[in-house]
Protein backbone atom coordinates (compact mmCIF):
# COMPACT_ATOMS: atom_id res chain seq x y z
CA UNK A 1 0.00 0.00 0.00
CA UNK A 2 1.24 3.51 -0.78
CA UNK A 3 2.11 5.33 2.42
CA UNK A 4 0.20 8.53 3.14
CA UNK A 5 3.50 10.22 3.77
CA UNK A 6 6.98 9.03 2.95
CA UNK A 7 10.32 10.67 3.58
CA UNK A 8 13.41 9.03 2.17
CA UNK A 9 16.98 10.20 2.68
CA UNK A 10 15.79 13.67 3.68
CA UNK A 11 18.55 16.02 4.77
CA UNK A 12 18.36 19.61 5.89
CA UNK A 13 20.64 22.23 7.34
CA UNK A 14 20.35 25.82 8.44
CA UNK A 15 23.21 28.33 8.19
CA UNK A 16 25.52 27.59 11.09
CA UNK A 17 27.25 24.55 12.46
CA UNK A 18 26.03 21.06 11.75
CA UNK A 19 23.18 19.60 9.73
CA UNK A 20 19.72 19.63 11.27
CA UNK A 21 18.53 16.44 9.63
CA UNK A 22 20.57 13.68 8.00
CA UNK A 23 19.37 10.87 5.81
CA UNK A 24 15.95 10.67 7.39
CA UNK A 25 13.62 7.83 6.38
CA UNK A 26 10.09 7.76 7.69
CA UNK A 27 6.76 6.45 6.43
CA UNK A 28 3.27 7.08 7.73
CA UNK A 29 0.61 4.66 6.44
CA UNK A 30 -2.63 6.14 5.06
CA UNK A 31 -4.89 6.86 8.02
CA UNK A 32 -2.08 6.09 10.44
CA UNK A 33 -0.44 8.23 13.05
CA UNK A 34 3.29 8.32 13.60
CA UNK A 35 4.79 10.30 16.46
CA UNK A 36 8.19 11.86 16.03
CA UNK A 37 9.59 11.94 19.53
CA UNK A 38 12.71 13.84 20.41
CA UNK A 39 14.26 16.33 22.78
CA UNK A 40 14.08 20.01 21.90
CA UNK A 41 16.57 20.93 19.19
CA UNK A 42 16.50 17.45 17.66
CA UNK A 43 14.98 18.78 14.43
CA UNK A 44 11.43 17.51 14.93
CA UNK A 45 9.64 20.69 13.92
CA UNK A 46 11.93 21.06 10.93
CA UNK A 47 10.63 17.73 9.61
CA UNK A 48 7.08 19.12 9.69
CA UNK A 49 8.15 22.38 8.01
CA UNK A 50 9.84 20.35 5.25
CA UNK A 51 6.71 18.28 4.69
CA UNK A 52 4.54 21.42 4.69
CA UNK A 53 6.88 23.05 2.18
CA UNK A 54 7.80 25.93 4.45
CA UNK A 55 11.45 24.85 4.19
CA UNK A 56 13.20 23.13 1.32
CA UNK A 57 15.31 20.04 2.07
CA UNK A 58 18.91 19.96 0.82
CA UNK A 59 18.49 16.32 -0.12
CA UNK A 60 16.10 13.39 -0.24
CA UNK A 61 12.51 12.95 -1.34
CA UNK A 62 9.17 13.69 0.28
CA UNK A 63 6.08 11.94 -1.04
CA UNK A 64 2.59 12.90 0.05
CA UNK A 65 -0.02 10.35 -1.01
CA UNK A 66 2.52 8.94 -3.43
CA UNK A 67 3.22 12.30 -5.04
CA UNK A 68 6.74 13.79 -4.98
CA UNK A 69 6.22 17.29 -3.60
CA UNK A 70 9.70 18.69 -4.29
CA UNK A 71 8.32 21.25 -6.73
CA UNK A 72 4.90 21.67 -5.15
CA UNK A 73 4.39 24.96 -3.27
CA UNK A 74 3.08 24.73 0.32
CA UNK A 75 -0.46 25.76 -0.59
CA UNK A 76 -0.83 22.81 -2.99
CA UNK A 77 0.69 20.12 -0.80
CA UNK A 78 -2.51 19.34 1.08
CA UNK A 79 -0.49 19.17 4.29
CA UNK A 80 -2.20 21.11 7.08
CA UNK A 81 -0.13 22.26 10.04
CA UNK A 82 -1.38 22.72 13.58
CA UNK A 83 1.07 24.52 15.84
CA UNK A 84 1.59 24.68 19.57
CA UNK A 85 0.06 28.17 19.38
CA UNK A 86 -3.40 27.82 17.77
CA UNK A 87 -2.79 30.87 15.52
CA UNK A 88 -6.46 31.38 14.76
CA UNK A 89 -6.88 34.45 12.60
CA UNK A 90 -7.87 37.17 15.09
CA UNK A 91 -9.84 39.19 12.51
CA UNK A 92 -12.16 36.28 11.68
CA UNK A 93 -14.73 34.67 13.93
CA UNK A 94 -14.49 30.98 14.75
CA UNK A 95 -16.76 29.85 11.91
CA UNK A 96 -14.85 31.87 9.30
CA UNK A 97 -11.55 30.58 10.67
CA UNK A 98 -12.69 27.04 10.00
CA UNK A 99 -14.21 28.11 6.67
CA UNK A 100 -10.85 29.62 5.65
CA UNK A 101 -9.53 26.58 3.77
CA UNK A 102 -12.70 25.86 1.76
CA UNK A 103 -13.02 29.60 1.02
CA UNK A 104 -9.53 29.94 -0.44
CA UNK A 105 -10.15 26.70 -2.31
CA UNK A 106 -12.97 28.49 -4.14
CA UNK A 107 -15.98 27.08 -2.29
CA UNK A 108 -18.84 29.60 -2.10
CA UNK A 109 -19.16 31.42 1.20
CA UNK A 110 -22.35 29.73 2.29
CA UNK A 111 -21.20 26.23 1.40
CA UNK A 112 -17.83 26.90 3.03
CA UNK A 113 -19.56 27.95 6.24
CA UNK A 114 -21.79 24.90 6.20
CA UNK A 115 -18.73 22.72 5.85
CA UNK A 116 -17.02 24.66 8.65
CA UNK A 117 -20.06 24.10 10.86
CA UNK A 118 -19.75 20.36 10.34
CA UNK A 119 -16.07 20.33 11.34
CA UNK A 120 -16.81 22.52 14.36
CA UNK A 121 -19.38 19.92 15.35
CA UNK A 122 -16.76 17.22 14.98
CA UNK A 123 -14.55 18.84 17.61
CA UNK A 124 -17.53 19.79 19.81
CA UNK A 125 -17.30 23.56 19.40
CA UNK A 126 -20.31 24.38 17.19
CA UNK A 127 -21.63 26.66 19.95
CA UNK A 128 -18.56 28.89 19.56
CA UNK A 129 -19.12 29.61 15.84
CA UNK A 130 -19.83 33.32 16.25
CA UNK A 131 -17.11 34.03 18.81
CA UNK A 132 -13.82 35.82 18.22
CA UNK A 133 -10.71 33.65 18.79
CA UNK A 134 -9.47 36.02 21.49
CA UNK A 135 -12.48 35.25 23.66
CA UNK A 136 -11.85 31.48 23.71
CA UNK A 137 -9.87 29.45 26.24
CA UNK A 138 -6.62 27.78 25.16
CA UNK A 139 -8.28 24.38 24.85
CA UNK A 140 -11.17 25.77 22.82
CA UNK A 141 -8.74 27.57 20.51
CA UNK A 142 -6.78 24.38 19.89
CA UNK A 143 -10.01 22.48 19.15
CA UNK A 144 -10.94 25.13 16.59
CA UNK A 145 -7.41 24.98 15.14
CA UNK A 146 -7.84 21.22 14.66
CA UNK A 147 -11.23 21.76 13.00
CA UNK A 148 -9.70 24.43 10.75
CA UNK A 149 -6.92 22.06 9.67
CA UNK A 150 -9.34 19.16 9.08
CA UNK A 151 -11.64 21.43 7.06
CA UNK A 152 -8.86 21.75 4.48
CA UNK A 153 -9.31 17.99 3.99
CA UNK A 154 -5.55 17.43 3.98
CA UNK A 155 -3.73 14.35 2.72
CA UNK A 156 -1.57 14.63 5.80
CA UNK A 157 -2.19 16.39 9.09
CA UNK A 158 0.96 17.76 10.71
CA UNK A 159 0.73 18.35 14.44
CA UNK A 160 3.60 20.35 15.97
CA UNK A 161 3.37 19.82 19.73
CA UNK A 162 -0.25 20.97 19.55
CA UNK A 163 -1.16 20.23 23.15
CA UNK A 164 2.03 21.06 25.03
CA UNK A 165 0.83 24.54 26.00
CA UNK A 166 -2.31 23.16 27.66
CA UNK A 167 -2.62 22.10 31.30
CA UNK A 168 -2.54 18.35 31.98
CA UNK A 169 -6.29 17.69 32.36
CA UNK A 170 -7.03 19.64 29.19
CA UNK A 171 -4.25 17.76 27.41
CA UNK A 172 -5.88 14.43 28.32
CA UNK A 173 -9.17 15.76 26.98
CA UNK A 174 -7.50 16.75 23.70
CA UNK A 175 -5.86 13.33 23.44
CA UNK A 176 -9.29 11.72 23.72
CA UNK A 177 -10.62 14.12 21.10
CA UNK A 178 -7.83 13.25 18.67
CA UNK A 179 -8.33 9.52 19.18
CA UNK A 180 -12.05 10.02 18.51
CA UNK A 181 -11.34 12.18 15.43
CA UNK A 182 -9.07 9.46 14.09
CA UNK A 183 -11.91 6.97 14.25
CA UNK A 184 -14.24 9.34 12.38
CA UNK A 185 -12.17 11.05 9.67
CA UNK A 186 -9.03 8.85 9.60
CA UNK A 187 -6.51 11.51 8.67
CA UNK A 188 -2.88 10.55 8.06
CA UNK A 189 -1.05 12.18 10.96
CA UNK A 190 2.56 13.03 11.63
CA UNK A 191 2.76 14.22 15.21
CA UNK A 192 5.79 15.90 16.73
CA UNK A 193 6.16 15.83 20.48
CA UNK A 194 8.72 15.68 23.26
CA UNK A 195 6.23 13.95 25.54
CA UNK A 196 6.61 10.12 25.40
CA UNK A 197 3.23 9.61 27.08
CA UNK A 198 1.52 11.71 24.43
CA UNK A 199 3.34 9.82 21.68
CA UNK A 200 2.32 6.47 23.13
CA UNK A 201 -1.32 7.47 23.67
CA UNK A 202 -1.87 9.04 20.24
CA UNK A 203 0.35 7.27 17.75
CA UNK A 204 0.36 3.81 16.21
CA UNK A 205 4.13 3.89 16.07
CA UNK A 206 6.77 6.19 17.52
CA UNK A 207 10.04 7.28 15.94
CA UNK A 208 12.80 8.64 18.14
CA UNK A 209 14.65 11.52 16.55
CA UNK A 210 18.04 12.36 17.94
CA UNK A 211 20.50 14.84 16.47
CA UNK A 212 18.76 14.83 13.11
CA UNK A 213 18.56 11.04 12.79
CA UNK A 214 15.83 8.54 13.52
CA UNK A 215 17.44 6.06 15.90
CA UNK A 216 14.43 3.79 16.40
CA UNK A 217 10.93 3.50 14.99
CA UNK A 218 8.57 0.95 16.46
CA UNK A 219 5.42 0.30 18.44
CA UNK A 220 5.44 2.32 21.67
CA UNK A 221 5.52 -0.81 23.84
CA UNK A 222 8.44 -2.26 21.88
CA UNK A 223 10.26 1.05 22.09
CA UNK A 224 9.94 1.05 25.86
CA UNK A 225 10.78 -2.63 26.39
CA UNK A 226 13.50 -2.92 23.74
CA UNK A 227 15.22 0.47 23.36
CA UNK A 228 17.91 0.59 20.71
CA UNK A 229 20.53 1.95 23.07
CA UNK A 230 21.07 3.28 26.54
CA UNK A 231 20.27 6.86 25.52
CA UNK A 232 16.92 5.82 24.09
CA UNK A 233 16.22 3.87 27.27
CA UNK A 234 16.96 6.94 29.39
CA UNK A 235 15.02 9.25 27.06
CA UNK A 236 11.98 6.99 27.38
CA UNK A 237 12.19 7.28 31.15
CA UNK A 238 13.88 3.95 31.86
CA UNK A 239 15.62 4.06 35.24
CA UNK A 240 17.50 0.76 35.39
CA UNK A 241 20.74 0.01 33.51
CA UNK A 242 23.16 -2.60 34.77
CA UNK A 243 26.53 -2.99 33.08
CA UNK A 244 27.98 -6.45 32.68
CA UNK A 245 29.08 -9.14 30.24
CA UNK A 246 27.03 -11.39 28.04
CA UNK A 247 28.25 -14.98 27.99
CA UNK A 248 26.32 -17.60 26.04
CA UNK A 249 22.94 -15.91 26.40
CA UNK A 250 23.46 -15.02 30.04
CA UNK A 251 24.07 -11.49 31.35
CA UNK A 252 26.65 -11.55 34.14
CA UNK A 253 26.73 -8.58 36.48
CA UNK A 254 26.53 -7.59 40.14
CA UNK A 255 22.92 -8.80 39.95
CA UNK A 256 24.21 -12.30 39.22
CA UNK A 257 23.64 -14.44 36.14
CA UNK A 258 20.45 -13.56 34.30
CA UNK A 259 19.36 -15.44 31.21
CA UNK A 260 18.77 -13.01 28.32
CA UNK A 261 18.50 -15.27 25.29
CA UNK A 262 20.88 -16.91 22.84
CA UNK A 263 20.65 -14.18 20.20
CA UNK A 264 22.33 -11.50 22.31
CA UNK A 265 25.90 -10.78 21.15
CA UNK A 266 28.72 -11.85 23.44
CA UNK A 267 30.84 -9.31 25.27
CA UNK A 268 30.14 -6.20 27.31
CA UNK A 269 26.48 -5.26 27.42
CA UNK A 270 24.16 -3.16 29.54
CA UNK A 271 21.04 -4.82 30.87
CA UNK A 272 18.15 -2.33 30.71
CA UNK A 273 15.02 -2.97 32.74
CA UNK A 274 11.81 -0.94 32.83
CA UNK A 275 10.91 -0.07 36.41
CA UNK A 276 7.27 -0.85 35.54
CA UNK A 277 8.17 -4.42 34.53
CA UNK A 278 9.84 -5.28 37.82
CA UNK A 279 7.89 -6.30 40.87
CA UNK A 280 8.54 -6.90 44.53
CA UNK A 281 7.86 -10.05 46.48
CA UNK A 282 8.77 -11.58 49.81
CA UNK A 283 12.41 -12.63 50.07
CA UNK A 284 11.29 -16.28 50.69
CA UNK A 285 9.07 -16.44 47.58
CA UNK A 286 11.94 -17.27 45.19
CA UNK A 287 12.52 -13.84 43.65
CA UNK A 288 15.09 -13.29 40.90
CA UNK A 289 17.26 -11.23 43.23
CA UNK A 290 17.06 -10.07 46.85
CA UNK A 291 18.12 -6.75 48.32
CA UNK A 292 17.28 -4.06 50.80
CA UNK A 293 15.24 -0.92 50.28
CA UNK A 294 17.40 2.21 50.26
CA UNK A 295 14.80 4.79 49.25
CA UNK A 296 11.15 5.33 48.39
CA UNK A 297 9.78 8.08 46.18
CA UNK A 298 6.02 8.40 46.03
CA UNK A 299 4.66 9.23 42.59
CA UNK A 300 1.00 9.30 43.63
CA UNK A 301 -0.88 6.02 43.79
CA UNK A 302 2.37 4.20 43.20
CA UNK A 303 5.93 4.62 44.39
CA UNK A 304 9.42 4.15 43.05
CA UNK A 305 11.17 1.86 45.46
CA UNK A 306 14.98 1.77 45.25
CA UNK A 307 16.38 -1.64 46.12
CA UNK A 308 20.12 -2.23 46.51
CA UNK A 309 21.19 -5.59 45.15
CA UNK A 310 24.89 -6.49 45.31
CA UNK A 311 26.03 -2.89 44.95
CA UNK A 312 23.52 -2.07 42.17
CA UNK A 313 20.40 -0.02 42.83
CA UNK A 314 17.26 -1.21 41.03
CA UNK A 315 14.23 1.06 40.82
CA UNK A 316 10.89 -0.75 40.99
CA UNK A 317 7.60 1.00 40.36
CA UNK A 318 5.05 -0.56 42.64
CA UNK A 319 1.94 0.00 44.71
CA UNK A 320 3.51 -1.92 47.60
CA UNK A 321 4.36 0.22 50.60
CA UNK A 322 7.87 -0.46 51.80
CA UNK A 323 10.25 1.49 53.96
CA UNK A 324 14.00 2.01 53.77
CA UNK A 325 15.77 -0.88 55.45
CA UNK A 326 13.14 -3.50 54.50
CA UNK A 327 14.52 -6.61 52.85
CA UNK A 328 12.64 -7.54 49.71
CA UNK A 329 12.78 -9.78 46.72
CA UNK A 330 12.73 -8.34 43.18
CA UNK A 331 11.21 -10.26 40.30
CA UNK A 332 12.89 -9.58 36.96
CA UNK A 333 10.68 -11.37 34.39
CA UNK A 334 12.53 -12.97 31.52
CA UNK A 335 10.56 -10.85 29.01
CA UNK A 336 11.62 -7.63 30.73
CA UNK A 337 15.32 -8.28 30.18
CA UNK A 338 16.93 -6.42 27.30
CA UNK A 339 20.61 -5.87 26.62
CA UNK A 340 22.00 -2.87 24.78
CA UNK A 341 25.59 -2.14 23.81
CA UNK A 342 27.56 -0.48 26.57
CA UNK A 343 28.50 3.14 25.87
CA UNK A 344 27.89 4.54 22.39
CA UNK A 345 25.59 2.48 20.17
CA UNK A 346 27.29 0.45 17.46
CA UNK A 347 26.36 1.64 13.93
CA UNK A 348 24.83 -1.71 12.88
CA UNK A 349 22.55 -1.52 15.88
CA UNK A 350 21.22 1.85 14.72
CA UNK A 351 20.64 0.40 11.29
CA UNK A 352 18.73 -2.48 12.77
CA UNK A 353 16.61 -0.11 14.78
CA UNK A 354 15.66 1.83 11.68
CA UNK A 355 15.06 -1.31 9.67
CA UNK A 356 12.71 -2.63 12.31
CA UNK A 357 9.89 -0.48 11.09
CA UNK A 358 6.56 -2.06 11.85
CA UNK A 359 5.82 -3.05 8.27
CA UNK A 360 2.33 -4.33 7.61
CA UNK A 361 0.88 -3.41 10.97
CA UNK A 362 -2.54 -4.09 9.51
CA UNK A 363 -3.55 -0.43 9.25
Amino acid at each position, binding site marked *: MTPGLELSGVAHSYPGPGPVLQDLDLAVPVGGCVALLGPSGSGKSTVLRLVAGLEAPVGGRILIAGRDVARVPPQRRRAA*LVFQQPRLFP*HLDVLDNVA*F*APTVAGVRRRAARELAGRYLGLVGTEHLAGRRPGTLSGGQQQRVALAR*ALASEPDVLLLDEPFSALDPSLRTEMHELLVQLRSVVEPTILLVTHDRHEAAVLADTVAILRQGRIVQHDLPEVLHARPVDLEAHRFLGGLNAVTGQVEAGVHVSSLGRLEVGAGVPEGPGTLVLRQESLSLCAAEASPTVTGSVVGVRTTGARAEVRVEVGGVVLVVETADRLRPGDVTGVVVPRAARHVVASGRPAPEQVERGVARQPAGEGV
Partner: protein
Amino acid sequence: MSGHRAAASRARGPVGATGSALALVWLLAPVVPLLLWAAADRWQFPSLLPQDWGLTGWRASIDQGVLAAGARSTGLGVAVAAVATPAGALAGWALARTGLRENRAVSLALLAPIALPPFAVVTGLSTVVLRTGIPPAVSVLLVLTAAALPYTTYVMRSAYVGYDAGYEDAALSLGASRRDVLTRVHLPLVAPALTAAAFLAFLVAWSDYVVTLLLGAGSLVSLPLLVGALASASGNDSTVAAASVAAVVPPVVLLVVSGAIARRTGRR
Protein backbone atom coordinates in the same frame (compact mmCIF):
# COMPACT_ATOMS: atom_id res chain seq x y z
CA MET B 1 -17.34 49.63 29.26
CA SER B 2 -17.72 52.82 31.27
CA GLY B 3 -17.31 50.68 34.36
CA HIS B 4 -13.92 49.57 33.04
CA ARG B 5 -12.91 53.14 32.46
CA ALA B 6 -14.03 54.22 35.88
CA ALA B 7 -12.09 51.33 37.38
CA ALA B 8 -9.03 52.30 35.37
CA SER B 9 -9.12 55.91 36.50
CA ARG B 10 -9.64 54.80 40.09
CA ALA B 11 -6.64 52.53 39.73
CA ARG B 12 -4.51 55.43 38.49
CA GLY B 13 -5.42 57.39 41.60
CA PRO B 14 -6.14 61.08 42.08
CA VAL B 15 -2.73 62.19 40.76
CA GLY B 16 -3.24 60.35 37.48
CA ALA B 17 -6.79 61.63 37.09
CA THR B 18 -5.68 65.22 37.72
CA GLY B 19 -2.87 64.79 35.19
CA SER B 20 -5.27 63.51 32.56
CA ALA B 21 -7.67 66.39 33.21
CA LEU B 22 -4.85 68.94 32.94
CA ALA B 23 -3.63 67.39 29.68
CA LEU B 24 -7.14 67.58 28.27
CA VAL B 25 -7.45 71.25 29.27
CA TRP B 26 -4.01 71.93 27.77
CA LEU B 27 -5.16 70.44 24.46
CA LEU B 28 -8.66 71.88 24.35
CA ALA B 29 -8.12 75.37 25.80
CA PRO B 30 -6.71 76.89 22.58
CA VAL B 31 -9.62 75.51 20.58
CA VAL B 32 -12.30 77.09 22.76
CA PRO B 33 -11.77 80.74 21.69
CA LEU B 34 -11.47 79.47 18.12
CA LEU B 35 -14.86 77.78 18.32
CA LEU B 36 -16.38 80.85 19.99
CA TRP B 37 -14.93 83.21 17.37
CA ALA B 38 -16.16 80.98 14.53
CA ALA B 39 -19.71 81.32 15.88
CA ALA B 40 -19.47 85.01 16.74
CA ASP B 41 -20.86 87.80 14.61
CA ARG B 42 -19.76 90.40 17.17
CA TRP B 43 -17.43 89.90 20.12
CA GLN B 44 -15.91 92.96 21.67
CA PHE B 45 -13.62 93.45 24.64
CA PRO B 46 -14.26 93.13 27.62
CA SER B 47 -17.19 90.77 27.13
CA LEU B 48 -16.37 87.15 28.07
CA LEU B 49 -18.68 85.72 25.43
CA PRO B 50 -19.69 86.98 21.97
CA GLN B 51 -22.45 89.61 21.98
CA ASP B 52 -23.97 88.35 18.71
CA TRP B 53 -23.92 84.76 17.53
CA GLY B 54 -24.11 83.84 13.84
CA LEU B 55 -22.52 82.22 10.82
CA THR B 56 -21.10 85.33 9.14
CA GLY B 57 -17.55 84.05 9.63
CA TRP B 58 -18.38 80.74 7.93
CA ARG B 59 -20.07 82.48 4.97
CA ALA B 60 -17.11 84.79 4.53
CA SER B 61 -14.57 81.95 4.76
CA ILE B 62 -16.48 79.92 2.17
CA ASP B 63 -16.48 82.99 -0.07
CA GLN B 64 -12.73 83.14 0.42
CA GLY B 65 -12.40 79.55 -0.91
CA VAL B 66 -12.18 77.44 2.25
CA LEU B 67 -13.99 74.52 0.58
CA ALA B 68 -11.71 74.43 -2.45
CA ALA B 69 -8.62 74.79 -0.25
CA GLY B 70 -9.95 72.00 1.98
CA ALA B 71 -10.43 69.79 -1.06
CA ARG B 72 -6.85 70.54 -2.18
CA SER B 73 -5.51 69.73 1.31
CA THR B 74 -7.53 66.54 1.41
CA GLY B 75 -6.20 65.53 -2.00
CA LEU B 76 -2.64 66.30 -0.93
CA GLY B 77 -3.08 64.37 2.35
CA VAL B 78 -4.58 61.36 0.62
CA ALA B 79 -1.87 61.38 -2.06
CA VAL B 80 0.94 61.58 0.51
CA ALA B 81 -0.68 58.85 2.64
CA ALA B 82 -1.17 56.70 -0.46
CA VAL B 83 2.54 56.83 -1.27
CA ALA B 84 4.10 57.04 2.20
CA THR B 85 2.04 54.24 3.80
CA PRO B 86 2.96 51.36 1.49
CA ALA B 87 6.54 52.66 1.24
CA GLY B 88 6.72 52.88 5.03
CA ALA B 89 5.23 49.39 5.34
CA LEU B 90 7.92 47.94 3.07
CA ALA B 91 10.70 49.85 4.87
CA GLY B 92 9.29 48.90 8.29
CA TRP B 93 9.06 45.25 7.25
CA ALA B 94 12.67 45.29 6.08
CA LEU B 95 13.87 47.09 9.23
CA ALA B 96 12.03 44.65 11.49
CA ARG B 97 13.96 41.82 9.83
CA THR B 98 17.48 43.22 9.80
CA GLY B 99 20.13 43.30 12.47
CA LEU B 100 20.52 46.17 14.89
CA ARG B 101 23.73 47.50 13.32
CA GLU B 102 22.37 48.11 9.82
CA ASN B 103 19.16 49.21 11.43
CA ARG B 104 20.82 52.10 13.23
CA ALA B 105 22.28 53.62 10.05
CA VAL B 106 18.98 53.33 8.22
CA SER B 107 17.13 54.78 11.20
CA LEU B 108 19.41 57.82 11.20
CA ALA B 109 18.84 58.38 7.49
CA LEU B 110 15.11 58.06 8.06
CA LEU B 111 15.12 60.54 10.89
CA ALA B 112 17.00 63.14 8.83
CA PRO B 113 13.87 64.82 7.42
CA ILE B 114 12.67 65.40 10.98
CA ALA B 115 16.04 66.46 12.33
CA LEU B 116 16.83 69.04 9.64
CA PRO B 117 15.19 72.48 9.85
CA PRO B 118 12.51 72.34 7.13
CA PHE B 119 12.75 76.01 6.18
CA ALA B 120 16.45 75.80 5.34
CA VAL B 121 16.09 72.55 3.42
CA VAL B 122 13.03 73.64 1.47
CA THR B 123 14.52 77.00 0.52
CA GLY B 124 17.45 75.13 -0.99
CA LEU B 125 15.17 72.60 -2.64
CA SER B 126 12.96 75.22 -4.21
CA THR B 127 15.90 76.43 -6.32
CA VAL B 128 16.59 72.88 -7.47
CA VAL B 129 12.93 72.29 -8.26
CA LEU B 130 12.71 75.50 -10.28
CA ARG B 131 15.79 74.56 -12.31
CA THR B 132 14.76 70.95 -12.97
CA GLY B 133 11.28 71.98 -14.03
CA ILE B 134 9.44 69.52 -11.83
CA PRO B 135 5.81 70.68 -11.54
CA PRO B 136 5.29 72.42 -8.16
CA ALA B 137 2.45 70.09 -7.09
CA VAL B 138 4.61 67.04 -7.78
CA SER B 139 7.56 68.47 -5.87
CA VAL B 140 5.32 69.28 -2.89
CA LEU B 141 4.00 65.71 -2.97
CA LEU B 142 7.53 64.26 -3.16
CA VAL B 143 8.94 66.36 -0.31
CA LEU B 144 5.93 65.82 1.96
CA THR B 145 6.11 62.08 1.29
CA ALA B 146 9.76 62.16 2.37
CA ALA B 147 8.69 64.05 5.49
CA ALA B 148 5.94 61.52 6.23
CA LEU B 149 8.09 58.41 5.64
CA PRO B 150 9.84 58.39 9.05
CA TYR B 151 6.46 58.28 10.78
CA THR B 152 4.95 55.58 8.60
CA THR B 153 8.16 53.53 8.72
CA TYR B 154 8.41 53.64 12.50
CA VAL B 155 4.77 52.76 13.02
CA MET B 156 5.03 49.83 10.60
CA ARG B 157 8.37 48.69 12.00
CA SER B 158 6.89 48.35 15.49
CA ALA B 159 3.96 46.46 13.99
CA TYR B 160 6.24 44.06 12.12
CA VAL B 161 8.54 43.48 15.09
CA GLY B 162 5.56 41.97 16.90
CA TYR B 163 4.18 40.30 13.77
CA ASP B 164 3.87 36.52 13.92
CA ALA B 165 4.67 35.09 10.48
CA GLY B 166 3.31 31.78 11.77
CA TYR B 167 -0.17 33.01 10.79
CA GLU B 168 1.00 33.06 7.18
CA ASP B 169 2.53 29.59 7.51
CA ALA B 170 -0.79 28.35 8.85
CA ALA B 171 -2.67 29.99 5.97
CA LEU B 172 -0.29 28.51 3.37
CA SER B 173 -0.66 25.04 4.84
CA LEU B 174 -4.44 25.49 4.63
CA GLY B 175 -4.14 26.04 0.90
CA ALA B 176 -4.09 29.83 0.66
CA SER B 177 -2.24 31.27 -2.34
CA ARG B 178 0.37 34.01 -1.77
CA ARG B 179 -2.25 36.52 -2.83
CA ASP B 180 -4.82 35.11 -0.40
CA VAL B 181 -2.21 35.20 2.34
CA LEU B 182 -1.61 38.88 1.63
CA THR B 183 -5.24 39.97 1.36
CA ARG B 184 -6.91 37.61 3.83
CA VAL B 185 -4.22 37.30 6.52
CA HIS B 186 -1.33 39.75 6.28
CA LEU B 187 -3.21 42.98 5.53
CA PRO B 188 -6.02 42.36 8.06
CA LEU B 189 -3.42 41.60 10.72
CA VAL B 190 -1.47 44.82 10.13
CA ALA B 191 -4.57 46.92 9.33
CA PRO B 192 -4.53 48.81 12.64
CA ALA B 193 -0.91 49.80 12.11
CA LEU B 194 -1.54 50.68 8.46
CA THR B 195 -4.44 52.90 9.51
CA ALA B 196 -2.29 54.66 12.10
CA ALA B 197 0.55 55.13 9.60
CA ALA B 198 -1.80 56.48 6.92
CA PHE B 199 -3.32 58.85 9.44
CA LEU B 200 0.08 60.24 10.40
CA ALA B 201 1.09 60.65 6.75
CA PHE B 202 -2.18 62.43 6.05
CA LEU B 203 -1.56 64.75 8.99
CA VAL B 204 1.95 65.63 7.82
CA ALA B 205 0.55 66.82 4.49
CA TRP B 206 -2.64 68.33 5.91
CA SER B 207 -0.86 70.53 8.41
CA ASP B 208 2.12 71.51 6.29
CA TYR B 209 2.72 75.17 5.62
CA VAL B 210 6.38 75.77 4.75
CA VAL B 211 6.80 73.14 2.02
CA THR B 212 3.52 73.97 0.27
CA LEU B 213 4.28 77.70 0.45
CA LEU B 214 7.84 77.57 -0.88
CA LEU B 215 7.73 74.65 -3.31
CA GLY B 216 4.12 75.06 -4.38
CA ALA B 217 5.04 78.57 -5.51
CA GLY B 218 1.50 79.81 -4.98
CA SER B 219 -0.04 77.31 -7.37
CA LEU B 220 -1.21 75.01 -4.58
CA VAL B 221 -3.32 76.91 -2.04
CA SER B 222 -3.93 74.42 0.72
CA LEU B 223 -6.04 75.08 3.81
CA PRO B 224 -3.12 76.15 6.03
CA LEU B 225 -1.98 78.58 3.31
CA LEU B 226 -5.48 80.05 3.08
CA VAL B 227 -5.74 80.36 6.87
CA GLY B 228 -2.35 82.05 6.91
CA ALA B 229 -3.35 84.42 4.14
CA LEU B 230 -6.68 85.25 5.79
CA ALA B 231 -5.03 85.83 9.14
CA SER B 232 -2.41 88.18 7.77
CA ALA B 233 -4.68 90.01 5.34
CA SER B 234 -8.31 90.28 6.42
CA GLY B 235 -8.04 90.83 10.13
CA ASN B 236 -11.56 89.51 10.36
CA ASP B 237 -11.34 87.27 13.40
CA SER B 238 -14.49 85.21 12.85
CA THR B 239 -13.57 84.44 9.21
CA VAL B 240 -10.09 83.30 10.24
CA ALA B 241 -11.57 81.32 13.13
CA ALA B 242 -14.06 79.57 10.83
CA ALA B 243 -11.28 78.64 8.39
CA SER B 244 -9.15 77.40 11.30
CA VAL B 245 -11.97 75.24 12.62
CA ALA B 246 -12.35 73.83 9.11
CA ALA B 247 -8.65 72.88 9.29
CA VAL B 248 -8.93 71.33 12.76
CA VAL B 249 -12.10 69.26 12.43
CA PRO B 250 -11.23 66.79 9.60
CA PRO B 251 -8.17 65.28 11.36
CA VAL B 252 -10.20 64.86 14.55
CA VAL B 253 -12.95 63.08 12.61
CA LEU B 254 -10.32 60.92 10.91
CA LEU B 255 -8.77 60.10 14.28
CA VAL B 256 -12.09 58.95 15.68
CA VAL B 257 -12.90 56.91 12.56
CA SER B 258 -9.46 55.29 12.29
CA GLY B 259 -9.53 54.57 16.02
CA ALA B 260 -12.84 52.79 15.56
CA ILE B 261 -11.45 50.77 12.63
CA ALA B 262 -8.37 49.86 14.63
CA ARG B 263 -10.52 48.69 17.52
CA ARG B 264 -12.77 46.67 15.27
CA THR B 265 -10.03 44.92 13.29
CA GLY B 266 -7.51 44.74 16.11
CA ARG B 267 -9.70 42.80 18.51
CA ARG B 268 -7.99 39.58 19.54
